[in-house]
């Protein structure tokens, strides 16, 4: 039974506010002490998990990849599977809701091949594959700067790739053809880029090479967006157990907020708290 001393006001509004942000329902009811416990406790746990997991433990959908190394480079309609962890994270409310927006954006962009509609001018890292004079395939881990401009004259794009090696020597390549960009919306801070290159310093016949690399993706395009198992494998490789702990923290934060929502809508589960313990009551009788 509800205790009349507890100002629940509108249970529906309080429950909804408690869902939208931990503690907001109690703040609306004037139960400030509990509002502080819920908002500080639950948000600390959620943000702590996000920091431990490089801001990547929350995602609503897992993308199955096909034959490509990463689903970023597949533009068909991929098979999506709901993340079970998100069912718990969702209960934190607003802090986990961007995931649903990103899911919508991801699905909306599905089936469209990424085209270059604006200039790319950013750092990159990756592997350059080239054939030496002896015909042997060489793979070199590189980093540098890439500039690609869309639709120049009758060409679909034009670009250069500048690589700086460990001795500080610069090598410039021309981005020639077969440019492929990863999905614009995807749950990875790095966007895949593939292209064929020509070494500008080589002789007239040129030296063919190809790039398998990544460039930074803007925060609003990767935060809480769907990702594939390749990305999760990389996260586990980089963070090890930290990523698992981060995920568990965000799950627990969501599940704890379920208790807060219940309390906001229906009051505390046991009692007000000033009742005498059963033993004392028996002694008095």
């Amino acid at each position: 039974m509800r205790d009349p001393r507890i100002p629940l006001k509108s249970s529906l509004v309080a429950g909804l506010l408690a869902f939208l942000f931990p503690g907001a329902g109690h703040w609306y009811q004037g139960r400030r002490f509990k509002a502080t416990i819920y908002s500080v406790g639950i948000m600390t746990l959620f943000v702590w998990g996000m920091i431990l997991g490089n801001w990547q433990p929350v995602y609503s959908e897992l993308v199955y990849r096909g034959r490509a190394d990463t689903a970023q480079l597949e533009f068909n309609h991929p098979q999506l599977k709901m993340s079970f962890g998100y069912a718990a994270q969702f209960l934190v409310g607003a802090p986990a809701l961007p995931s649903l927006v990103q899911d919508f954006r991801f699905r909306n962009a599905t089936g469209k091949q990424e085209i270059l509609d604006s200039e790319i001018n950013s750092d990159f890292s990756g592997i350059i594959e080239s054939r030496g004079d002896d015909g042997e395939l060489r793979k070199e881990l590189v980093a540098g700067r890439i500039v690609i401009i869309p639709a120049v004259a009758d060409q679909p794009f034009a670009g250069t790739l500048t690589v700086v090696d460990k001795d500080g020597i610069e090598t410039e390549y021309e981005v020639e053809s077969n440019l492929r960009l990863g999905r614009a919306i995807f749950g990875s801070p790095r966007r895949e880029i593939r292209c064929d290159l020509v070494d500008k310093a080589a002789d007239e016949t040129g030296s063919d090479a190809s790039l398998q690399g990544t460039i930074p993706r803007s925060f609003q395009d990767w935060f809480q967006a769907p990702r594939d198992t390749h990305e999760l494998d990389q996260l586990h490789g980089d963070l090890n157990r930290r990523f698992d702990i981060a995920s568990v923290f965000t799950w627990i934060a969501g599940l704890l907020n379920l208790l807060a929502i219940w309390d906001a809508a229906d009051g505390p589960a046991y009692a007000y708290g000033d009742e005498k313990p059963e033993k004392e009551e028996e002694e008095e009788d």
Partner: protein
Amino acid sequence: MDLTILTHAIPLTAIICLVYTASRFELPERILRSAAVMFGKTIGFLGAMYLLLLYLSR
């Protein structure tokens, strides 16, 4: 063995105890008292389990 990972359990337990007891009672004193008791019992249990497993793994 990396013990730093286990230190996460202490503040995690504290938050769980506080939020759980806050959802059971209304009075701040009762919430804090119950949370402290629950925290002590949980950490005691976890510590005992850790020592038991440490002993068995030697």
